[in-house]
């Protein structure tokens, strides 16, 4: 990269999630408008702990390859870096390698030879236990103090990197950076910060563009382009049919944030309390007044997931108006009968397994919180069982099966037959996971918890 000082840095965010797609024309337009870097997020915790716990991507390979093909070709043509964050959804080492494999295939197919850096973010529980013993791990609300056995119970733990490892990779010559778990913002803030742009506008712009076109009037039309300079940043859509408005841009600070004014990054806190949002023209918004307070202690947030048991699911449907008129009584009876039958047949007590009965069409989504009352026209009854092993979970679901087929309400003197949706009725879901870490490590350096490896692009076998 050239080391000459620059007046501004332009970041292209083609989509909110690698694999979600974007029109090719929007990438062309971003290049024409002078993008200095392409940054795209490849992951999130949003869809739950499975993807980290099992180290599996949420996106399908074909969708990721489709997006990467266009972005790699664009980056090569414009000679600008391409940065992918949180590779493979959770940012595990396996997720980074998965994306790297796709990149290698695309490079071979397209005759590209961009230099690729992989930044691994997975953490060793023994190393973290030492950090814990040294008093360097702290809980974030609402988590409680970390116990060593919690670290041991995780199938995978990642550290959430800031911009520093990404900057290090680019300064070392990477044209494509495939980062493990990174803050959603770090991938977009890295190049502006590296080129000397102020931290306030760099991080604020990064937050606004992390979801691609979400801060525009037509989020489905494509991503956005942010230009950061010494005093602030401007933001505009990549699609000519969309517009950024001051309200939409300001409102994006609210999205998926607990606090809409302050956002913690590894090396400090973005503060947008005094930011101003002004329309430059019909599609572009100018933002000024964003600040960044550098923290006394650099910290790396941890994410970890562990297995809670194994799940089996079963689903039946009820249309009988009489049962539906007494659906709460029916569901209560079903719960009682399942417990009785499980104890009678396989001798399990309440603390040895767990199940949930969800009445879809009635109150499955909100349960007791639901403000609506009254009998529905039809109800889907989902039974979800969790047990220490898959065989037990399925045994419980099979014991419940005759009840889910024939259970009457207490006042019926005959057995109804309900509407199973599938045969066999039981679907084994495999291991179920939960997030158990919501803690930060006091970093020794901003980069020492992450490993950067370079490779020249070559065809994979």
């Amino acid at each position: 990269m050239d080391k000459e000082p620059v007046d501004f840095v332009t970041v292209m965010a083609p989509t909110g999630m690698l694999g979600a797609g974007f029109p090719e024309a929007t990438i062309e337009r971003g290049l024409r408008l002078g993008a200095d870097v392409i940054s795209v997020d490849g992951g999130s915790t949003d869809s739950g702990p499975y993807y980290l716990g099992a180290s599996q991507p949420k996106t399908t390979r074909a969708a990721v390859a489709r997006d990467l093909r266009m972005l790699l070709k664009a980056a090569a043509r414009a000679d600008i870096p391409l940065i992918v964050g949180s590779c493979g959804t959770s940012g595990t080492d396996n997720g980074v390698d998965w994306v790297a494999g796709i990149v290698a295939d695309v490079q071979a197919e397209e005759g590209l030879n961009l230099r690729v850096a992989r930044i691994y973010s997975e953490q060793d529980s023994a190393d973290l236990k030492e950090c814990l013993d040294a008093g360097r791990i702290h809980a974030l609300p609402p988590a409680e103090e970390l116990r060593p056995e919690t670290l041991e119970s995780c199938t995978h733990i990642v550290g959430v990197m800031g911009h520093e490892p990404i900057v290090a990779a680019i300064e070392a010559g990477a044209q494509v950076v495939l980062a493990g778990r990174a803050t959603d913002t770090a991938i977009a803030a890295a190049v502006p910060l590296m080129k000397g742009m102020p931290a306030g506008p760099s991080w604020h712009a990064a937050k606004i563009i992390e979801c691609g076109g979400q801060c525009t009037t037509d989020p489905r039309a494509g991503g956005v382009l942010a230009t950061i300079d010494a005093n602030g940043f401007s933001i505009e859509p990549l699609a000519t049919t969309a517009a950024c408005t001051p309200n939409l841009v300001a409102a994006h600070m609210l999205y998926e944030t607990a606090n809409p004014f302050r956002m913690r990054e590894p090396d400090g806190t973005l503060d947008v309390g005094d930011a101003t949002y002004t329309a430059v023209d019909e599609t572009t918004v100018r933002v000024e007044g964003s600040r960044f307070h550098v923290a006394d202690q650099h910290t790396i947030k941890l994410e970890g997931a562990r297995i809670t048991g194994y799940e089996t699911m079963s689903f039946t449907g009820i249309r009988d108006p009489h049962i539906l008129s007494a659906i709460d009584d029916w569901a209560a009876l079903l719960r009682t009968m399942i417990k009785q039958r499980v104890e009678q047949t396989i001798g399990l007590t309440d603390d040895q397994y767990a199940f949930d009965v969800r009445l879809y069409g009635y109150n499955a989504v909100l349960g007791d919180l639901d403000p609506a009352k009254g009998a529905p026209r039809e109800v889907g009854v989902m039974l979800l069982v969790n047990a220490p092993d898959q065989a037990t979970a399925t045994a419980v679901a099979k014991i419940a099966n005759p009840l889910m087929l024939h259970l009457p309400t207490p006042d019926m003197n005959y057995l109804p037959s309900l509407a199973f949706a599938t045969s066999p009725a039981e679907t084994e879901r495999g291991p179920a996971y939960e997030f158990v870490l919501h803690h930060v490590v006091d970093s020794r350096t901003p980069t020492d918890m992450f490993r950067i490896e370079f490779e020249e692009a070559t065809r994979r076998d």
Partner: protein
Amino acid sequence: MTETTPTILADLAHEIRSKNAGPFWVTMELFMRDADGYRIAADESFLNERTVARLYDVDEEGIQIFRIPSLNVVKISFPRPVSQASLFDRDIHSGQHHVPLAVLPVPDN
């Protein structure tokens, strides 16, 4: 809507939404249509920590409410009461949890 139905918050809003803010927090936003609607939603005697605690069966102490007049927005965040994707989590992204808030009847002037 019939005349006997009380006005609910959704009637005064452009959008009311809920979403995860990381795996351990839920956050909700009421985008009110105008300053009048904002004034009602932002009224601390109507929509406050106690109201939210009752609607969502969560502790008052953990609830954060942000009132943002420049956007006509009220934002509410609280720790996720049920562990994400656990056996008893029926809304993995917390995307439908805005409904009790949206249908909350607005008090008469």
